[in-house]
Each structure stands twice: as structure tokens, then as C-alpha cells.
């Protein structure tokens, strides 16, 4: 399942000129926020120097520490935040050069975002149908009114909400958490997108419905060539759908590679810690992370050196001086750690 050849099926074929460039690529993407006021003003490094590539028809999972910058990356990619520095390339073209309304609309249609918090991202003043129909009108103007309605019902049903007609008539506050979450997902599907930025799209869903949505992602990837940035804390689900897995810690991508390879052969000590903590409901709680206090990483005015050094069991002198950068350590598998060893 992981062996998707990249350029074989360009989804709609209209991007002929840039077909060799990845669908989306970031170079040294960085976003800082000011925190505190007046004299105690400091800089919070939410995302630092992130190079991330998403190919056509690829599902890239992004997992990692809470507060490590995953949503910030998604928001940068969606154009909700502007980068402090660095660049995003869409089909080879820097998004900063997409100035016209037409370009921006096309980009937002191609790359919709599903927000992490469905309680604040759906407009409470409008029925569910409103947002879906509106984005259909905006991004697929060729559809007639009747076709739009039909299409809206189709996407609502695709995310397991039924009866679609009833759900479409409701206001967001008339839905449960998991139902709202799926409305957000349905809205993104309506666009006929190329890449969906899905920020924790299944966190409020029970396993059964969750699997339905994951299967839907795989299916869309296969049949319509849609790519996904799938942000999740559920590592098992990342393994289930994703081709590639990237792990974030304190604003950096610290490891990335084919999902199976990262899981079977983690290179970064944080990845190790994370995988060790993935609980197995059938087994008793193990003591794998006993003693790890889950201390918040220091991303406010960080000094050079590895950001994981205060928690790292393998720390060496160099870790206090130099910030490690990603190194290739296996087939398409890289990690940012001074002591991580390449595959034999």
C-alpha cells in the first residue's frame, strides 16, 4: 500500500507544466509568535525550518508532541497564518506569488483545511448545508443548483452522517462533537480538492466511525488522487492510512520516513518515547515512560542545541551546543539527532 508511484496519476491533469515538482513542498518554513507583554516580551518558536514534501496521491501523517507546531504548519499551508520566513511551493510555484484573488481562490479550492476544533470552526449562524453549498458554488461553479444539492448530500453521507437531508438542515449546535467534526471533513470533500489538510479529523470519533473515515481517505486517494496531510495523535491510525510519517517535537520535524519504517525502526529518541507510550488496550499498562514527566519543551526564545535534550536518555555534550538537523539514515528515512545511527 505504501508503494504509490508518484507521477503516474496526476489527478486532473491540468497541472502539466509543473508535473515534476512535488504537489506541495515547504522550504525552511518558520513561524514565530510574540508572547508576553512589555518588558517580558518573548518569542515563541512554533515552527522552525520545516522542510516538508507531499506528493500527488500521498498521505503524509504528522504526529508528535502536543504544542509542537502541527496545527501551525497546517494553518501556514492553508494561508491562515503567514510564515515568519521560509516558503511554500504548490506545484512548484511559491504561494507567496499567488496574489490575485483568482489564484488564491483556486489554491484554497485545491487545498482545503479541516480544523482541529469543530466547535469553533463551524459558523453557528448557518445550517450545515450552507457551508457545503457555498463552497461548492465557489469552487465548482459548473454545477447546477440541483447538482450542488445532490453533491452536498453525497459528501455528507460519505462521512457517515445520515440521514443526510436531516443533518444538512441542522445548525452546528444541534450536533455532537464527532458529528461536527465530520461536517468539517465533508466541507473539505465538496471542493474536489487535490490536498486536504486534515488537522485531527478523527479525534472525537469512536473507533468504528474512525475506521470508516480512514477508509474513505484511502479510497479518495486511490480513486480521485487526493493527497492528505493527516495530523493525528493516533499513531495506529497513521500506520493504517499513511504512506509517510513525520514526527514533530518543539517546532521541528525530528524524524520522517515511510510509516512502516519509522514505526519498526525509530531513529529519534523522542519517536522512541512516543511509540513506547502508545497504549495497547488489551495489555496491562507498561512502565515504559514511568519517570518521564512530560515536561513542556522550551520553545520560548530557545537557545541552540537539541530541544529534546532535557528529556533525552541518550544526550551527549554536542546536544547542548548544536541543533541537530535531519540526516538520511535509511531508505527515505531521516532523523535529526546527533547520535542516531544509520541503517547497517
Amino acid at each position: 500500500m505504501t508503494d504509490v508511484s508518484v507521477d503516474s496519476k496526476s489527478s486532473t491533469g491540468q497541472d502539466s507544466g509543473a508535473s515534476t515538482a512535488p504537489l506541495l513542498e515547504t522550504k525552511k518554513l518558520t513561524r514565530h509568535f510574540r508572547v508576553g507583554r512589555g518588558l517580558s516580551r518573548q518569542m515563541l518558536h512554533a515552527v522552525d525550518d520545516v522542510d516538508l514534501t507531499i506528493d500527488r496521491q500521498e498521505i503524509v501523517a504528522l504526529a508528535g508532541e502536543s504544542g509542537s507546531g502541527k496545527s501551525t504548519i497546517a494553518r501556514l499551508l492553508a494561508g491562515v497564518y503567514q510564515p515568519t520566513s521560509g516558503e511554500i511551493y504548490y506545484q512548484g510555484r511559491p504561494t507567496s506569488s499567488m496574489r490575485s484573488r483568482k489564484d488564491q481562490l483556486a489554491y484554497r479550492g485545491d487545498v482545503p483545511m479541516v480544523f482541529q476544533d469543530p466547535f469553533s470552526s463551524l459558523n453557528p449562524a448557518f445550517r450545515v448545508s450552507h457551508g457545503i453549498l457555498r463552497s461548492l458554488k465557489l469552487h465548482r461553479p459548473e454545477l447546477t443548483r440541483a447538482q450542488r444539492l445532490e453533491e452536498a448530500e453525497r459528501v455528507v453521507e460519505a462521512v457517515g452522517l445520515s440521514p443526510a437531508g436531516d443533518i444538512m438542515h441542522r445548525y452546528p449546535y444541534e450536533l455532537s462533537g464527532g458529528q461536527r467534526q465530520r461536517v468539517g471533513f465533508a466541507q473539505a470533500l465538496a471542493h474536489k480538492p487535490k490536498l486536504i489538510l486534515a488537522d485531527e479529523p478523527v479525534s472525537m470519533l469512536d473507533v468504528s466511525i474512525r475506521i470508516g473515515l480512514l477508509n474513505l481517505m484511502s479510497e479518495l486517494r486511490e480513486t480521485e488522487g487526493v493527497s492528505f496531510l493527516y495530523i493525528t495523535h493516533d499513531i495506529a491510525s497513521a500506520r493504517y492510512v499513511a504512506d509517510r510519517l513525520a514526527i514533530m517535537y518543539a517546532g521541528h520535524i525530528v524524524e520522517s520516513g515511510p510509516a512502516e519504517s519509522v514505526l519498526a525502526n525509530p531513529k529519534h529518541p523522542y519517536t522512541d518515547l512516543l511509540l513506547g507510550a502508545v497504549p495497547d488496550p488489551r495489555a496491562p499498562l507498561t512502565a515504559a515512560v514511568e519517570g518521564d514527566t512530560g515536561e513542556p519543551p522550551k520553545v520560548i526564545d530557545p537557545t541552540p542545541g537539541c530541544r529534546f535534550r532535557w528529556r533525552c536518555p541518550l544526550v551527549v555534550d554536542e546536544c547542548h551546543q548544536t541543533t541537530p538537523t535531519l540526516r538520511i539514515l535509511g531508505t527515505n528515512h531521516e532523523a535529526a539527532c546527533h547520535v542516531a545511527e544509520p541503517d547497517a
Partner: protein
Amino acid sequence: MPSQQPILEVRDLTVEYDTGSSPVVAVDSVDLDVHAGEFVGVVGESGCGKSTLLFAIAQLLSPPAAITGGSVHFQGQDLVAMNEKKLAALRWRDYSVVMQSAMNALNPVKSIGSQFRDAIMSHDERVDDDRPAEVMRMVGIDPIHLRSYPHQLSGGMRQRAMIAMALLFTPDMIIMDEPTSALDVVAQRSLMVQIKELQQQLGFAVVFVTHDMSLVSHFSDQLMVMYAGQVVEFGATRAVFDHPAHPYSKGLLDAFPSIRGPKQPLTGIPGTPPNLAHPPSGCRFHPRCPVAFEDCPKIEPELYQVGPIQARCLLHAPGQTQPAEPVQEVTS
């Protein structure tokens, strides 16, 4: 344990959303006892009524939702009959609530710290000045974020801020609705271990809704499984995990992917969630149940005792002649 009397007694609780046409019965005759120091997990399909149940217990429902039957007693007092002023005095101090949406529960135009101060000010109880920083550290957030506004925090940080707030005055009961769904597993586990330790020290009760079966399996004493507004299974967590008596619970336990072993295609529980305005006849799970038989669409099952567990399934009805130990391979 201070007394044998449960700290929370929910009896026959029913909650309806008045939709104009047929009401949505989101909570249907639910009974629940929670003792001091006990940890009760609540699981069930998205939309089955878990949040509504918690809101009803905490008296936080607003129209069109209303309690149409039953009672909620907390420390012997009837919460349903209590006026808002008395409830406000209990909330945060005697019981606290962590809602599913931290973003909805927090005030967007106030810093976290000032919201903590507001909660403290509204009660006469004295709280140390450094308590806010202390609870923030407890949940793994740098206290510098007391000065942050909700939108400046990540999803998981907001959730932890809510939990920190619930711990401001060590209450006797904490109600939590998916409080860790935005946390990575390392932070989640360290937070849960902390809550569990605090609970053992201080003896408060926890009612905890989650979709995460592993959280339940490791931390809860009692487990309640809901389906379509009803309790379909209740018992000691270990007993339910080892021998789920209801086909829905069994399906739920079988459905999750793993990070180890061979990768298998999964299908979940087939079929669609029921419409709560018009639930299926008989057993509400019958259209999706892999072991349904001819009585299931006709007879409404009650909660039957199955060893140490209670289950709402006709296979366990007294005198049932169907083979009562089916349900081995639900998903295959």
C-alpha cells in the same frame, strides 16, 4: 471510603431535544451510581448521547434540551431541583466539569489566568496565590501561558488548561468529556497517571467520556457502554474487557488498528448509527447486530445481569433459549 452512599446517584434520567417534530431522546432512562474515589469510564458511538448525559448530570443543559424524567443526586442533594445560584456555588468547588470543547468553554477574550481568577473569586473558599501556576505545571504547561489567550494555545494545551481549571479547588467529583483527545500519548499518559494519583490521594470521583479504549482499560474502575441513548453494558472495566456481554461492546473492542503485527484492513461496525428521533424497534442495535435473531426487532431488552456485568441484550434474558455464548468473531 467515607460512606457507602454513592456520591452521585443518577436514576432513570431521560433527556430530550425538542426539535419541533419528534423529540430526539438523547439520554433514555439512564441509571448510574458513582462512589467516592471511583473512576467511571463512558464510551459509545459518536452521537449516542454521552455529552448530553454529562451536561444533564452537571445541570448545564440549555433549551431545546431538557430533562424530561428521572433524578440526579449529588452528595444527597437533588441537583435537578436546585436553583442556579446554589448550583453555581457547587460548581468548580464541589464538582467540576471539563467539556468536550475547550474552545467553547473558555472565554476567548480573557487570558487563561484571569479566567482562573474569576472562578476563584466566585467562591468564598481561599486558594493560594500560586495555585494557578501550580495546576498549570501539574498538567504540563509552562505557567507563562497563564497570560495567553485561548487562541494562542494549541488544541492540547487548551484541553490541559481546562483540566487545570477543574483542579483549582480539589472538588469531590470531576466530570470530563474527552479531555485528552488532543494530547499526544506521552502527555496523555503522564496526565492520566497524575489524575489517578491525585484521585488516590484526595479521593475524588471521576466520570470520564472517551473514545479511547486504552485510556479506559488502564484507568477506569467501572465502564459504561452507551448505544442510542441507552446504557447497553455496565460493569467492572476488566470484566467488560475480558468478556464483553453485548455485541456492540464486542464490536467496539475488536475494531481498533494496532501499531504492531500485520496490517489488516478493518471495517468497523457495519451499518449506520440510529436516528434518535426514531430509534429502531425492539433492540436498538438489531439492524447492525451480527448475531441478531427473530425476537430482536420485536422485544425491547432490559439490562440483564450476566455474571458481574449488566447487558441489554436478549441473548442474556432469563430463560433465553438461543445459544448464550455467541459473539466470538463479530467483524470477520
